[in-house]
């Protein structure tokens, strides 16, 4: 724990939009960068939404933090506040952007595109089409919304339009595919599992389930296993939970789309330090640094997992 106040030594902070394994991977990226670059960096994760994120940022300003990389919870409404932060310190965004603010750089990817990549996996898994349920933590997050829309648009073969929005309650029917609905769980794991179970109870002949938050696919697997329906219902995943990767190896999950949170973390610190020292940070005029999402299938899963473990210092 540091009591180092600003001025002498540069300190950086990486602020997430919640608490999640996703961010723990980012955290190891931050720590790695801090070690590599010889700087001090803290990771803060607000557990209670926008109100807490605001007071965290305020408190970081008080401490005199040199630079902050933040994942805004809702960019449109946080613009003014982010501008105030940007006035007092170096501000960049990561994971999700605040395009109208005075942030200097955005490190991330497009969730709509990632969603379409996930949708492509669904089509691969079900060449004949079928019925699909989407399970997600919550829907009011911009990234969740765009990701889900990307899946739907790709599966139904629609045009590229990130602003489209289908109501989550009612089914969306296409030629080959039917999206039965979208279930949210508010991060309650028991509820997430119950959602998967209830889906099986309600639609015994469902063809696939898509889990959009890191913990959804493992819980879908649990439900399927207990119902004796492993391999009967296809599972398409998002993110890189251990169980998800194991499922891909075992063949119970068709594939997953992974972002690169480790790089979000690493790059954030690298870029903040570069800006602080007045060096080039490698972003273009729009300040966007793209970190691609990848599709992981049975063929590349082992290599990916080994690399991930190395980064997390697990092996």
């Amino acid at each position, binding site marked *: 724990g540091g009591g180092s106040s600003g001025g002498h030594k540069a300190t950086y902070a990486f602020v997430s939009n919640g*608490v*999640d*394994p996703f*961010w*723990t991977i980012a955290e190891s990226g931050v720590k790695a960068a801090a070690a590599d670059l010889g700087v001090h960096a803290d990771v803060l*994760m607000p*557990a209670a939404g926008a109100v807490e994120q605001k007071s965290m940022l305020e408190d970081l300003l008080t401490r005199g933090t040199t630079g902050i990389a933040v994942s805004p919870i809702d960019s449109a409404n946080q613009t003014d506040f982010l501008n105030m932060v940007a006035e007092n310190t170096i501000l960049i965004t990561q994971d999700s952007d605040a395009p109208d603010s005075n942030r200097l750089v955005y490190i991330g990817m497009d969730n709509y595109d990632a969603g379409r990549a996930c949708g492509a996996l669904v089509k691969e898994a079900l060449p004949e089409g079928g019925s699909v349920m989407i399970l997600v933590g919550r829907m009011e997050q911009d990234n969740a919304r765009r990701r889900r829309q990307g899946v739907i648009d790709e599966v139904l073969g629609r045009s590229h339009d990130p602003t489209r929005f289908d109501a*989550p*309650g*009612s089914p969306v029917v296409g030629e080959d595919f039917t999206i039965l*609905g979208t*279930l*949210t769980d508010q*991060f*309650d*794991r*028991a*509820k997430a*599992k*119950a*959602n998967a*179970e*209830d*889906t*099986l*109870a*309600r639609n*015994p002949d469902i063809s696939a389930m898509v889990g959009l938050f890191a*913990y959804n696919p*493992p*819980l879908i697997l*649990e439900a399927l296993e*207990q*119902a004796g329906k492993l391999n009967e219902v296809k599972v398409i995943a998002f993110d890189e*939970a*251990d*169980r998800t990767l*194991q499922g891909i190896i075992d063949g119970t999950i068709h594939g997953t789309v992974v972002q690169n949170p480790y790089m979000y973390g690493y790059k954030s610190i690298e870029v903040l330090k570069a800006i602080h020292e007045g060096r080039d940070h490698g972003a273009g005029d729009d300040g966007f640094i793209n970190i691609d999402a990848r599709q992981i299938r049975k063929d590349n899963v082992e290599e990916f997992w080994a690399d991930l473990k190395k980064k997390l210092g697990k092996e």
Partner: protein
Amino acid sequence: MISFLSKLTGPQNDGMKRILGIFVLLMMVYVVTAIINPNFLGSYNQENLIRRTSLFGILGVGVAFVIITRGIDLSLGSVVCLVGVGVPWLIIDQGWPVPVVILIALGLPAVIGFCHGLLITKLKLQPFIVTLCGLLMYRGITRGFTGDQTAGFGTELKGLRWFATGEIPLRIGLDIPVPAVILMIIAILAGIFLNRTIYGRYMLALGNNEEAAKFSGINTDRMIILAYVISSGLAGLAGLLFVLDVNLAQPVDFGNFYELYAIAAAVLGGCSLRGGTGTILGVIIGTALLQVLRNMMNMAFLGFQRAEFAVIGAVILSGVIADELAKRAVARKRAAQKQK
């Protein structure tokens, strides 16, 4: 059967009456959901419902003891978190031997409850504050030692997980989930303890009037401590079963809000927060009602999933209102008859 039930509900003579209203409500929700979606009654869904009710029911039975002694336990959800995250973390990440971890999982919560009880009785601190601090601390500690990492068993420990996910086949086409058997045993023991042993009687007595109980020679402090030990201990067991069922637990939100569900179930099932009344059967029916309502939303009203909690709240509220109005109508009728 009836007499067995009444043994579980005990000598408080309005016990059965209190439960009746909530039971009728439960039945109504059942019927409505079954009509809208016949899959609701399918054995797969019923088994799921029974398993969920059993897991949450263990929490409810535990907190009922605390409520009966006029206390409250807000730390349940965090104890669930501590155990639910701690067990896979110790076994998988730290490689501790399973029996040792299970022992800790069941023993540590009891120690926690003991500490709560000590602070509440010997230092006369308010239960609300003590257990609120518990709520904050145990989750915080869990987040601290795991570094907020998700813990889970992966594909291991299938044997142990049988306790949460296993089923005992019956001839009737419905398999009984193992947690239901566990809850049944706990409920019967709890019912006997509360209604057929002197300690249960002591708890009911001191919940009504602690001073008078003390003046009758009851060691009220010991009884109160015991209630908190039961409550935390069962929360630990529930936490263990939850993680065995779900297979992964994240420190930041595992068990979040479960104390409120448990307390709500107990209160719905006839426990008064003023202490001194409560039945085990009622608590289980209350728990079942909450679980069936959540299931109903997914089975029958998917379009309203967002408003799930609104519907649950509204159903519970109209249930207790209807119950109260019905009781009054009956009382009025009886009074009118008497006058003739």
